[in-house]
């Protein structure tokens, strides 16, 4: 199943005193927060049955924004230091074939919290709300007796909302990641430090960085006279990726975010900033992990770490996201709980997705997943138990784009565009050669189109989702 990693965690010493339960509850604090009250749950079915016996684990669900899978030091990136993300890699199972359901903020997040594809949640673009009637994580777990809290970016629909169904919101927001993420980490730190309840908790820490890189690309043409605003950094800039100037034939919509006129120097400075922003959020994650360790609850808390989507990073001359290449679509997915889940394991075999998070949390909590959830529980993979796993996964892009990923190939198609893409991901992981016109791959193309058809037939698209594109 896996290959062992040899990374060592950063050395720290910590002396945690025995936690004392105090009198007031977080539910009480939630009421005291006035406008930051949680809304009522709105499931379409009766709600989860809590397990009849046995303690339920806590969950810490950490989300980054615009973090590519291979942008972590422990995943091989030489240009960044991520000691706290590496802590998670060293403490748990890291899935190396992990994909966003739709590499854009709101759609991907809708899948995290429902276990459904964006075309089903109705969130096919940014700034849309999950359609009514679909059970959501916060309410589902709260009904099962969990203490649920959320801090940071939500984006379903608004980036920061004082009310999120099923969650007590710990305030954060106003500004971008550089100013908001510290508020988020402090709020989570305080929650873990101050909570009084005996109930198991589900805490979501949703960070913005390294999403701030979006603004660099947008602003650079307007604010800069030269390609490198800090010449002192010239010798510290990352190298460009091997597929930087390679653009295989692609559907028309792929050309949306290319910066053709950037010099190599400008690209390299872009990468330098991106990796510093990752280091910033790594420090915030460290604050929350330290707080968890010091809370006395780490042994019974499953930490799930992922991102909504990746970032172009100059691969195929792309920036940002919302296209099917791996730089945008592949995201970290790490699950850890020392003593319960194996440590230092990298799973490079199984195709997994943001779709699977809801099922996984439900499985560990002993809850049934809501009806209609398409994700699979990662638990058998995490515990190295035999399980029949998916042969393919599908992700969405740009309203009508669909990608089918099998163990060897990636097939991309857009409605009303005759250009398709087929990449041999084993022989060509940098996606440089589009094989779709080559006759020897005709059967492969047919097979992937058939898999897509089978997948589509299983879905219940939201009404508004079919009206776009």
């Amino acid at each position, binding site marked *: 199943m896996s290959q062992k990693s040899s990374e060592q965690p950063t*050395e*720290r*010493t*910590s*002396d*945690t*005193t025995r936690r004392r339960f105090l009198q*007031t509850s*977080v539910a009480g*604090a939630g009421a*005291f*927060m*006035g*406008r*930051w009250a949680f809304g009522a749950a709105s499931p379409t079915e009766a709600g989860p049955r809590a397990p009849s016996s046995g303690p339920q684990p806590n969950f810490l669900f950490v989300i980054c924004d615009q973090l590519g899978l291979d942008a972590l030091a422990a995943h091989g990136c030489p240009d960044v*230091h991520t000691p706290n993300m590496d802590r998670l890699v060293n403490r748990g199972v890291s899935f190396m074939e992990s994909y966003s359901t739709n590499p854009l903020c709101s759609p991907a997040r809708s899948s995290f919290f429902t276990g459904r594809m964006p075309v089903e949640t109705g969130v096919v673009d940014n700034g849309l709300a999950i359609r009514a009637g679909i059970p959501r994580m916060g309410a589902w777990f709260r009904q099962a007796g969990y203490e649920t809290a959320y801090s940071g970016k939500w984006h379903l629909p608004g980036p*920061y*909302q*004082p009310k999120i169904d099923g969650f007590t919101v*710990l*305030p*954060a*927001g*106003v*500004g*971008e990641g*550089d*100013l908001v993420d510290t*508020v988020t980490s*402090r*709020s989570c*730190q*305080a*929650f873990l*430090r*101050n909570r009084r309840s005996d109930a198991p908790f589900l805490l979501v820490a949703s960070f913005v960085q390294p999403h*701030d890189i979006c*603004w*660099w690309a*947008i*602003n650079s*043409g*307007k*604010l*800069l*006279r030269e390609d490198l*605003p*800090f010449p*002192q950094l010239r010798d*510290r800039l990352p190298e460009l990726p091997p597929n930087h100037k390679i653009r295989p034939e692609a559907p028309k919509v792929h050309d949306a975010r290319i910066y053709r006129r950037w010099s190599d120097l400008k690209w390299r400075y872009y990468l330098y*900033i991106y990796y*510093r*922003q990752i*280091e*910033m959020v*790594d*420090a915030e994650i460290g*604050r929350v992990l*330290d707080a968890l360790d*010091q809370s006395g609850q780490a042994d019974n808390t499953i930490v799930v770490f992922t991102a909504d989507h990746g970032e172009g990073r100059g691969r195929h001359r792309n920036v940002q996201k919302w296209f099917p290449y791996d730089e945008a679509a592949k995201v970290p997915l790490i699950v850890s709980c020392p003593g319960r889940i194996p440590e230092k394991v990298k799973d490079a075999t199984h195709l997994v997705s943001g779709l699977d998070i809801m099922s996984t949390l439900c499985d560990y909590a002993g809850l049934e997943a809501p009806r209609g959830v398409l994700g699979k529980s990662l638990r058998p993979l995490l515990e190295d138990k035999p399980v029949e796993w998916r042969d393919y996964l599908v992700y969405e892009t740009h309203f009508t784009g669909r990608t089918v990923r099998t163990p060897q190939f990636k097939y991309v198609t857009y409605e009303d565009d005759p250009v398709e893409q087929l990449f041999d991901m084993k022989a060509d992981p940098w996606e440089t050669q589009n094989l779709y016109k080559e006759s020897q791959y005709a059967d492969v193309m047919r097979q992937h189109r058939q898999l897509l058809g089978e997948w589509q037939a299983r879905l219940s698209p939201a009404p508004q989702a079919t009206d776009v594109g």
Partner: protein
Amino acid sequence: MAGKTHALTDYYTLNCLDLTLKDFEAPRARFDPQGAWELAYGVYSAPRAHICARVGRLRLQRQSTGDDTFDLRVTYEKTLPADYTQIVTAHLECRSDALSTPVRWTWSTVTQSPEGEAVAVTQLERAGEARAGEVTIRDARAESRIPVGASIALNWALFDAVQRLPRKAVEPLRFSLIDHFDQIKPNQTLSFRQSAKVSLGGERIRLYAYNQFGQGVVPWEYWVDDQGRLLFAISGIEAYLIESSEQ
């Protein structure tokens, strides 16, 4: 390359502050960076050209406590949605050296409602201490010890340090950064970059710029005036612009 409604300067970080500087008037009162002072800054988020939103306030108060030590009090108020505010207050005991090296510090954070009520679950009180190559962070329940290099600086204390640096090129300072009181970020440098005449509030003023680079920071540029007073501190789309200066 000029924008639609403003002319680009030669200085990238000042361009990031954009129209916010249009009516800026530099403080003129006498200022001694070595003495007792109080400076207040608006905290700005500038994600796009022509968008520079004030999202908080930073107040720094410095008081000498001996020949080579001083106290720095920090009050940071960050605007949150629905008119909530996160307030951070801190007390730093520092050395009056090149990096304003922190010796001991305490800080507390709380989120306040629009009515000024503290939200109990968000309260934290913590302390830090630096000694012999190690930083200790503690609160009532737990303590962590983190090894650091020989030279350290705390982010808010750097707002003091840059005001006392030589206004010319010298060997860069190298240190580990203690960011936001408890995040250790090694491999930092702080150095003089340039002297420049900048148009502010209709007049051209001589300013001096310093750059900080390192792990876990988007490059910082600190701009001080002829008296050493820090007027602007900019890191990417995060910016601090002086609003008041008292001594």
